């Protein structure tokens, strides 16, 4: 069985931990996020007949007080870039984190998850902006940690992007 390291990247309070909670088994407390800055979770998933064990590194969301520890990204096979669809600024922040990660560790497969899609009335990311992202040949998925919409699909898409074709 293949083992892969995946990092959850994004601004503070975009819902990374909530996305993982719907998806994985866990033995560590959320306190690790605010102390060590990362919490490890695990998920075994089968994609195209191939079982893959995902080690999910849920990184503390970057904000004005704390930056992401880049050393945690070392050896990751993929990133799940999470932004809050109701706050356009978080998307820009997430993309900035991606740029910095690629600057440190080179190009890495990723999927952009626009979270909180259940709050359609507050949605700030325009269709044009989403189309522009998709136009870069990026995989962009609307997700909702609350309803579960798109969560499984986002992870599966990331695994497909990671695995050799």
């Amino acid at each position, binding site marked *: 069985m293949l083992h892969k390291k995946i990092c959850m990247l994004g601004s503070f309070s975009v819902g990374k931990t909530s996305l993982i909670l719907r998806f994985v088994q866990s033995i560590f407390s959320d306190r690790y996020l605010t102390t060590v800055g990362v919490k490890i979770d695990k998920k075994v998933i089968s994609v195209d007949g191939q079982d893959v*064990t995902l080690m999910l590194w849920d990184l503390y969301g970057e904000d004005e007080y704390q930056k992401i520890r880049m050393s945690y990204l070392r050896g990751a096979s993929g990133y799940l870039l999470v932004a809050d669809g109701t706050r356009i600024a978080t998307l820009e922040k997430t993309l900035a984190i991606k740029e910095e990660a690629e600057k440190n560790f080179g190009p890495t497969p990723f999927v952009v998850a626009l979270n909180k899609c259940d709050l359609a009335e507050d949605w700030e990311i325009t269709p044009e902006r989403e189309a522009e992202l998709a136009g870069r040949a990026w995989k962009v998925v609307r997700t909702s940690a609350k309803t579960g919409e798109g969560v499984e699909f986002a992870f599966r898409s990331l695994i497909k992007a990671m695995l050799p074709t």
Partner: protein
Amino acid sequence: MSDKPANDVGGPSAGGSSHEDEKALQELRTLLFSEEQHEIVALRERIESPEQRARDVSAVVAEAIQMRRARGGDHELSAALTPTVEEAVRESVRKDSHVLVEALFPVMGPAIRRSVAEVFRSTVESFNQVLESTFSIRGLQWRFEAIRIGRPYAEVALLRSLVYRVEQVFLIHLKTSLVLQHVVDPAVVTQDADMVSSMLSAIRDFVRDSFSTQQGDSLDSLQMGQLQVWIEQGPQAIIAAVIRGQAPQELRLSLKEKLEEAHRRFSRELEEFDGNPAPFEAFRPELAACLTASYRRDKPAKSRPYLAVCAIVFAVLLAGWYGYTAIQNHKWALFVENLRQQPGIVVTSFQRARGRYRIQGLRDPLAVDPEALLDQRKLNPRLAEFHWSAFYALDDSLVLQRAIALLQPPAGVTLSVQNGVLHAAGDSSSEWKKSMRERAHFIAGITAVDDKDLNDENSPRRLKAAVESEIILFELGQAEINPRQQPNLAAVAQTIQKLLQIAPSAVGNAIVELVGHADSSGPEATNVLLSQERANNAVRELVRLGIPEASLRATGIGLSSPLRPETDEQNRQYNRSVTFRVVGPETPQNR
């Protein structure tokens, strides 16, 4: 050739000469080195021929291996040969497993026996250690600790005698933090190795990032209480051992060697690791070899005979105490069984607590006193704790006691109870009889009264029988009333008085005839006179006591009808007497 100019290199003659020279040189070479040339050709053919090379190596391979082993470093040799040997064995089993089975058969039996013997030996050793620790102060301390923390005694004993134990070993890919291989002691409960491995790597990164350290420095140990994590880092992988207790530094060296071996054997796999840990399965035995442990072994105890003596004395006292207690318990059980048999006692519970015997139940106040029963059975009353509730028992014997206490029957009356029926028999006054009939039904346990055998002591028949049963005795040859017979006469006078009082209504005009008797001494004629005189004197005395003379009649019969045969003086005395007979109209029976 030496006369030829050095710069002359052109012209046909010169060219022909050169050819000839070459030929000559070839001939010379052939003459001088032909044998060596043949050998060189043969050597070349030998080197270039794979079959020949294989033959050459096969001739020396055994010696080469021996030389390598003799030189040391057989670990590398083993490491090199292991994959091939493993593959060969696997292939052999796949083709025909019987070959390997037959080859191993001669060694399997002894190996199994040895394994069983080893297990047995270690079991006996463990048993001895447990016995030793159980009866020692240290063992008692461990036992108290086990009770206090709620863990099994064996676990506490094991941990307290533990020097160190390697509980888990991780081989972790440095770059991805993914587990390549993980081994764990079977006695240890662990968390998910993948997550622990990743978190451990994260913590190492956290520590390195958080504190200013030199390039290349890394976290190489963690400690929490008795638990330590030793970490050794290589270029591609790290090895982490979770250790309980204080491990020797040699263990760290051993971990380093394992890590180096992993890099040597799996350098390509580590370099190209894509998340598939399967190739590192082959390294599992090496990691498992790191799961070592060391336990404290106490010096053999010195011979301490006083301990054995104390143990024996203790055992004897214990057995004695146990036996005494068992006997006492048996005695008390018999006592309680006896109590249960007693009328008016119902034992509802019997138990032993804090060295005393607690007996609880119901007791009729008239039942036997349990304390008295204790004395009979020689049991210590201070050990008894009775708790009785009063009640009325319906046992016949207790009902009878209750009836006697309440009715207080006069002398001559006998009471008995059978199945709740009170039987009264004998003679009593009519007043008592009436009172008895009224009160008997208030006695708990009395359901009916049967007094058909209870006679009225003042009935005419009773009075007549009472008068006729009296006798007045006389001295030899005397007709005078003996003063000692006065009370008898007074009693007879009283009874006759009662009889005469009821006579008019009951028996008509009753006459009491006093019959004088005489013994055989003296002539018959004298005896008749003497007996008549005795009867006359008795009549006079009764008249004096208030009996009407008309109701009395005196008759002397001498020896004509002796009361007793004169076999001795006592019987002869009875024949010197006056007896009484009530005559007159016949009285109805049972009146």
